[in-house]
């Protein structure tokens, strides 16, 4: 059974059909469900995007980043500040937030990029806390302190204002699908392979001439940039940003999305985000117990599937030969 499934997964025609079916579901979904579920699906998209962005850092390169909410917050606040102060349209700020967050990541991770494993993990936690506390302390009166910033505009495309849950749903999912496609392409590029090499054996990678430092920085810059995009979308949807949205638990949840799904696996990230987003919905009747159950569930998932629910298949010589179609 498992073998047939693996064989089917390997077939390009089957894979194409599966992707087409998934895209069809995404398109049809808002027209067959209620407003509530469309909203849930928006947040699912947002968390998928955050998961994909962390997957670049944690999944592809194996850099323990437990402060990813810092980049998300940076993107959201960039959008919020530039929009409310200078009236720059929110959609224009989408690439601006991405670039600003990427620059921020480059600035703050350059001095710490050489740290390994647990040390990097603890520094990124500290980074997340520094960003949150700074936003909370309102330096120079630009972040609005604990209340945050409100009155952010809706995104506009020409005359069309993105306002309803369905419109937001499509905005986020178009971006998610584009990102997923680009990241899948990246996996098979020189950069993607070098990233995986670093994850599996950093010393060997370095010995083979891989520029470890630059590639690690690149992963942080790219991942943070995507988190900046998620921040922009979040600010546009909520119309208000405040520091309490970017607490450590959020970083933990994004971390979980990647690890539950499977490190370095794009479909795994979708699945991880689905599990994490649906969890509170499924356990709504047990509202107050759901985080308790969530904690226990994490332990259980790591017990039964330490590599995640949908780990990335390793490319073997045989699988590569099949894919290229050569005997």
């Amino acid at each position, binding site marked *: 059974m498992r073998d047939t499934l693996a064989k089917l997964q390997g077939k390009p025609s089957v894979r194409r059909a599966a992707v087409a079916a998934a895209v069809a579901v995404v398109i049809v979904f808002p027209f067959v469900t209620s407003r509530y579920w469309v909203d849930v699906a928006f947040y699912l998209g947002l968390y998928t995007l955050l998961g994909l962005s962390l997957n670049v850092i944690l999944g592809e390169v194996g850099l323990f980043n437990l402060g990813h909410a810092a980049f998300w917050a940076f993107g959201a606040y960039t959008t919020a500040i530039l929009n409310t102060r200078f009236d720059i349209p929110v959609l224009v700020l989408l690439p601006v937030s991405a670039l600003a967050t990427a620059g921020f990541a480059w600035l703050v991770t350059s001095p710490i990029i050489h740290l390994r494993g647990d040390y990097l993990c603890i520094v990124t936690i500290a980074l997340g806390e520094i960003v949150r506390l700074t936003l909370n302390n309102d330096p120079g009166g630009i972040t609005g302190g604990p209340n945050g910033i409100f009155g952010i505009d809706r995104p506009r495309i020409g005359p069309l204002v993105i306002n309803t849950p369905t419109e937001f749903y499509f905005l986020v999912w178009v971006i998610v699908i584009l990102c997923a496609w680009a990241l899948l392409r990246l996996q098979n590029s020189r950069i993607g392979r070098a990233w995986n090499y670093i994850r599996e054996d950093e010393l060997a990678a370095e010995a083979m001439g891989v520029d470890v430092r630059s590639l690690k920085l690149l992963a942080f810059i790219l991942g943070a940039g995507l988190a900046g995009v998620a921040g922009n979308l979040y600010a546009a949807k909520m119309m208000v940003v405040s520091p309490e949205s970017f607490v450590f638990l959020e970083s933990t949840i994004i971390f979980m999305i990647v690890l539950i799904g499977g490190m370095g696996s794009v479909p795994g990230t979708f699945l991880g985000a689905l599990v994490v987003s649906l969890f509170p919905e499924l356990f709504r009747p047990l509202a107050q117990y759901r985080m*308790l159950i969530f904690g226990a569930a994490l332990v259980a998932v790591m017990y039964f599937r330490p590599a995640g629910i949908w780990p990335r298949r390793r490319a073997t010589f045989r699988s590569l030969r099949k894919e290229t179609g050569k005997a």
Partner: protein
Amino acid sequence: MITFIQQFLNGLTIGSFYAFIALGYSLVYAIMKLINFAHGDLFALGSYVAYSFLVWSAAALASVLGLWGALVVAMVVAAISVAIAGLVMERVAYRPIYPAGRLPAVVSALGVSIFIENFIMLVWGPRYQAYRSSFVPVGYFQIGELRISVLQVVILISAVILLGFLYWLIERTTFGAAVRATAQDRETAALMGIDFRKVIRFVFTVGPALGAIAGVMVGLYYRQISFSMGWVYGLKAFVATILGGIGNIPGAMVGGILLGILEAMFAGYVSAAWKDVIVFLVLMLILIFRPRGLLGEKVAEKV
């Protein structure tokens, strides 16, 4: 000058809380190479257990043993219960997952942390709980303008005694040598006849117990405890661990005290709102310039 001494003493007190918690992190990290994210929450659990115990029995106990006696009993009760919780946690959430690698263990630790935090919230409620004034000693010494509470003095003295005892245990006894040997090289230590299980049981008993004692002290000192306080204290104690050199027992003590003093001085002279930011900036600076900590020796990475 008075402010300086006052802040210094406050810093020492907070620092000894960090030192207690940091020891738990450091011991577990030394043996398991795992950041025990749930440790801060065990500390909070200790605070709550002692709180409930005191609410339930403080009046009866105090009439027999006096207030101090009742507090000691409460600390012992909290330490034992949290040590049991620590052992159960190791058995359920770490031992089965540990062989799968580092990342699953980290996720499991985060899971346990979320679990304990929410457990506390469900049992004791999401609001602050206050240690009642009837079980907090109120006396103080007045030296000129300087006012030092009896509680502060007792906390500092017991910190010195407990930390001194632990230092002796780890650095001077045969069992301590076994713990240090395991920390350095688990396999070779096992070949030398050291019972690895015993060492693990030790670190998961002593670490949580010390954390629980710190929890009770924090409750008495600030009188206010919340279910989420484990996170902040835990994180800062971890910074203290790194400050002193991760896996280094005297280092954790020194790191805790230094961090407490730094924090109190910064809060007293510069800004209270930014004190946590400074703590985390110090962490980053330490890791950039002295990644092995202040007391840590340089260790070459094994290939």
